[in-house]
């Protein structure tokens, strides 16, 4: 019994035929037009070779360095803009690096990072500097591809800064010209950093301040001693009679105890103590600000 094909069946038949063609079924009518097997293989190999050669194509943009490798060994470094061919994968490859490696950084020491001078005085230092990677080969050989260059430079710089501060007395650091000291420190740094391919182009000290000294440390301890004394007296008064102690507190017999924490901290910081005799004492602080350039 003959069954008439529906349009859907015809479409499926067409798709089947096309798939068979793709998978290699030969069309009996076009046998003569087909390429011979050897020609086909030759074409395929040439195409594959071409594709492989293209893997050696490179483009280095402006503000970029390219580091070239052959069998994993660094062979060349070029700066863009350049287009060309190198050894194809896996024999050769290249890595692009940003050529504008450099930044302006500042170090502002906080309480935990005060630098001790040669005479062991803690100094607050604010220094601003500008660095540039001027020899990418040296830099790369030492550190490889650094994720955070600023962090690395900061570490190396901070170590050198401590050494510089520790090599001089606080009087010299505070009273000498900040410009001259900045230049001197910059020259020292550039000698040290030359092996890393790093150059410090600008450097200036914005602040070099002696934070504290043994004299005003003694003053601070005196405030603490007075506070402890008042606390002791208050405790004794409470033991005798709570009401009397309360009245004494209200009558401002314990001036330090009546202050809040901020008030106490201010006294400690400014070293100004309102003593019983009413005298104010201020300790001199040496603060020097000098702007070298902007």
């Amino acid at each position, binding site marked *: 019994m003959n069954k008439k094909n529906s349009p859907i069946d015809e479409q499926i038949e067409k798709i089947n035929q096309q798939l068979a063609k793709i998978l290699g079924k030969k069309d009996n009518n076009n046998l003569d037009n087909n390429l011979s097997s050897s020609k086909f293989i030759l074409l395929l190999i040439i195409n594959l070779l071409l594709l492989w050669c293209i893997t050696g194509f490179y483009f280095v943009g402006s503000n970029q360095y390219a580091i070239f490798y052959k069998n994993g*060994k660094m062979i060349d470094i070029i700066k863009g803009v350049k287009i060309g061919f190198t050894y194809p994968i896996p024999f050769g490859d290249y890595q692009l690096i940003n050529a504008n490696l450099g930044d302006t950084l500042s170090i502002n020491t906080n309480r935990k990072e005060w630098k001790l001078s*040669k005479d062991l005085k803690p100094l607050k230092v604010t220094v601003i500097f500008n660095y540039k990677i001027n020899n990418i080969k040296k830099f790369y050989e030492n550190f490889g591809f650094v994720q955070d260059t600023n962090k690395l430079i900061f570490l190396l710089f901070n170590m050198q800064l401590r*050494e510089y501060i*520790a090599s001089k007395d606080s009087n010299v650091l505070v009273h000498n010209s900040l410009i001259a000291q900045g230049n001197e420190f910059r020259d020292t740094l550039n000698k040290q950093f030359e092996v890393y391919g790093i150059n410090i182009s600008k450097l200036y000290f914005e602040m070099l301040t002696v934070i504290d000294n043994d004299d005003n440390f003694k003053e*601070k301890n005196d*405030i603490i001693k007075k506070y402890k004394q008042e606390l002791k007296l208050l405790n004794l008064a409470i033991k005798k009679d709570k009401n009397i102690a309360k009245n004494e507190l209200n009558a401002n017999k314990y001036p330090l105890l009546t202050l809040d924490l901020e008030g106490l901290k201010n006294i400690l910081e400014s070293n100004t103590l309102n003593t019983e005799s009413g005298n104010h004492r201020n300790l001199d602080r040496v603060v020097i600000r000098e702007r070298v350039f902007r």
Partner: protein
Amino acid sequence: MKKLILLFIIILLILSIAIFRVRDNQVAIIKKYNGQVFVKHNGLHFFIPFLERIYFIQLYKNYRVVEVPYFNNKDSYLLQLLVEFKINDAINYFKLVDVNSKAVFLEKFDDKIRKIVIKGLHKNIVDLNNSKVLFNDIAFDQMGVVINYIAIYNISNSKYEDTQHVLESLYNNASKIKVDLIK
């Protein structure tokens, strides 16, 4: 012939997956399916895909800041040390990091540095402040690293900071007494 072409393409694909290069200042650790590890240095190498795994380890300079408390004539100081180190035995390093983790490695590393500094450093604070590099060329063989140098990164004198903390604790104590008194 078609079978040959197919075979050629499959071989090419497997080769392209199996080949890898190791750059300068880098080593590749190949970990076999049975846990055995071996190291490959600079150049082109092969591995067996799916049965072996590759880990690349960089041999560049690394930096780490380690904090060590230091006491000198009753005064306490906080030493911050800058340690420059390199991995010199990739297998030992890898075994440690692979079994534990990088965090455990760094913890052990810090402990070792602290022990060396506390044991070997008998300087007064003036000499210490004037020092640059404290120790040179130390090998941590079991960890697979070599220390190029341990230098002073910073010294902070806690003497000048303590006053704030002492005053704060005294204030808290006084506040409690005052509250009790008002009740």
